[in-house]
């Protein structure tokens, strides 16, 4: 087993919510975890920073400014293992929603739109700037899955990340299908691993972990239109929230 690896968290364009998830294990599990990893940089919970080599770097946030590239490259150089942590880092996440629009700056920042620090380019996953070893999907990440990823890496084992859709997990827990109650859902194309909490709570899956490797996007549009009664144009764009860079029409 890896001897107490140095673990660090870094953030780019994101809300830092995935990092907050890492503090949500509860005291017992978190303190147990700290016996096995040495957290050397994690601004949600500590003020120390590091310039030293790292064993596992968790990178949160999308790559949306060229100016961030040197910092990403520096992390890559120092880290043995880089994990794209959360949906922004894996695919660009919700940030990528702007990629197919032109007026987002005006729309979001209004009178401040021209301020130079608000400049950004297309939002993409951090693997568009550096090599990423593993992906922790989700908005936010599933903290138990992250625990398994860390656990597997501690033992030198490649993490097990599902490539089947959320439907599998809904069925396993006997959740009533959203389509059966007249709702829509993106679970048929969405990557599982979350345990399907949203449909179980009566909320459609929005595919916050992105698509499975081979999503049947055409069938999704058909079903959204036919079963959920969505107007065709709406159905076509529906999955974009978390999959803007994975869709067939990615900008």
């Amino acid at each position, binding site marked *: 087993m890896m001897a107490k690896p140095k673990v660090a968290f870094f953030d780019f364009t994101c809300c830092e919510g995935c990092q907050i998830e890492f503090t949500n294990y509860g005291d017992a599990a978190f303190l147990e975890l700290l016996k096995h990893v040495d957290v050397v940089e994690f601004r949600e919970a500590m003020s120390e920073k590091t310039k030293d080599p790292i064993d596992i770097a968790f990178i949160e946030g999308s790559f949306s400014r060229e100016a961030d590239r040197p910092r990403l490259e520096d992390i890559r150089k120092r880290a043995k293992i880089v994990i794209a942590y959360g949906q922004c880092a894996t695919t660009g996440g919700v940030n990528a929603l702007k990629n197919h629009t032109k007026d987002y700056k005006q729309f979001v920042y209004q009178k401040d739109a021209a301020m130079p620090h608000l400049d950004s380019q297309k939002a993409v996953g951090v693997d568009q700037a550096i090599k990423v070893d593993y992906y922790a999907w989700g908005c936010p990440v599933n903290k*138990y899955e992250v*625990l398994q990823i860390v656990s597997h890496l501690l033992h030198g084992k*490649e993490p*097990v990340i599902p490539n089947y859709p959320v439907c599998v997990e809904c069925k396993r827990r006997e959740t009533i299908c959203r389509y059966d109650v007249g709702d829509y859902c993106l679970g048929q194309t969405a990557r599982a*691993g*979350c*345990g399907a909490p949203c449909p179980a709570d009566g909320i459609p899956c929005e595919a916050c972990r992105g698509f499975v490797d081979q999503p049947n996007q055409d069938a999704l549009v058909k079903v959204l239109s036919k079963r959920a009664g969505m107007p065709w144009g709406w159905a076509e764009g529906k999955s974009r929230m978390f999959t803007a860079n994975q869709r067939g029409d990615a900008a």
Partner: protein
Amino acid sequence: MPAPTPCRCATPSPDQDQKENIFLPREANIIRVEKTTEMERILTLRLADGSQMKFEPGQILEVGLMGYGEIPIGLASSPTRTNTFDIVVRSVGRVSQAINTLGKGDTLLIRGPWGHGFPLENLRGHDLLIIAGGIGLCPTRSLIQYALDRRQEFKRFSLFYGARDPQQQLFTADLADWRKSKDVDYHETVDKSDPTWKGNVGVITTLFSKTKIDPGTRVVICGPPIMFKFVIREIDKLGIPHQNVFVDLERRMKCGVGKCGHCQMNDKYVCTDGPVFAFSEIERLEEAI
């Protein structure tokens, strides 16, 4: 995989069916390690309780480590050899990579042997031709050793072995023996030569012209799926009936005991109905070859 909650099994419950539990592995110790290529290592194992493992050439073992998982591996040595057994582990996935970090003296967990091996009763008393391509040499080595150890049980014994290039050749010490041996009519080839190679170059079917094969010969084939098609064509030219041709198949075996469904092709479970099948039994099965 749904996220497991931490510390779920703090107090494991007692097992009421320990002995009958087909998923409970037993320990085997690694007594010898040989790195045979960049990707593969030969491990010689012995059951930790010192007993001799009963198996047939061609059977499979589930080999693994707790926390990492299990993989199916064909036994690569003959039951006629001492109380050890060999497996070849190719570093391709989580489990094989973890196993290949272990060394002499370490412990592996095994289940099995499972499945149907080579049909010795059908092979005995006949000419035997074994055709092995690539890592297909590993499971067939159990039969090759067996045939050499019980040479009198077989008539003429021919062996064809094809590797991608000389660096990919497995069991090089055995190959050196077989080249010299009078007990086996051994022929080998590589798809791609290098400056060190003095032997045949070309696909495995080119070896058929090197020796004489009688139509009454029993044939055993193991290799990549693409190889089967071309080898069978040669077999047909020789007029060997398909019930005398045995193939050792590879699928995604997972549980090893004919339950989990991953290795299923048609109505057969490769791990339990095979991995060795008479070609006549599967040639018309969809998805088999």
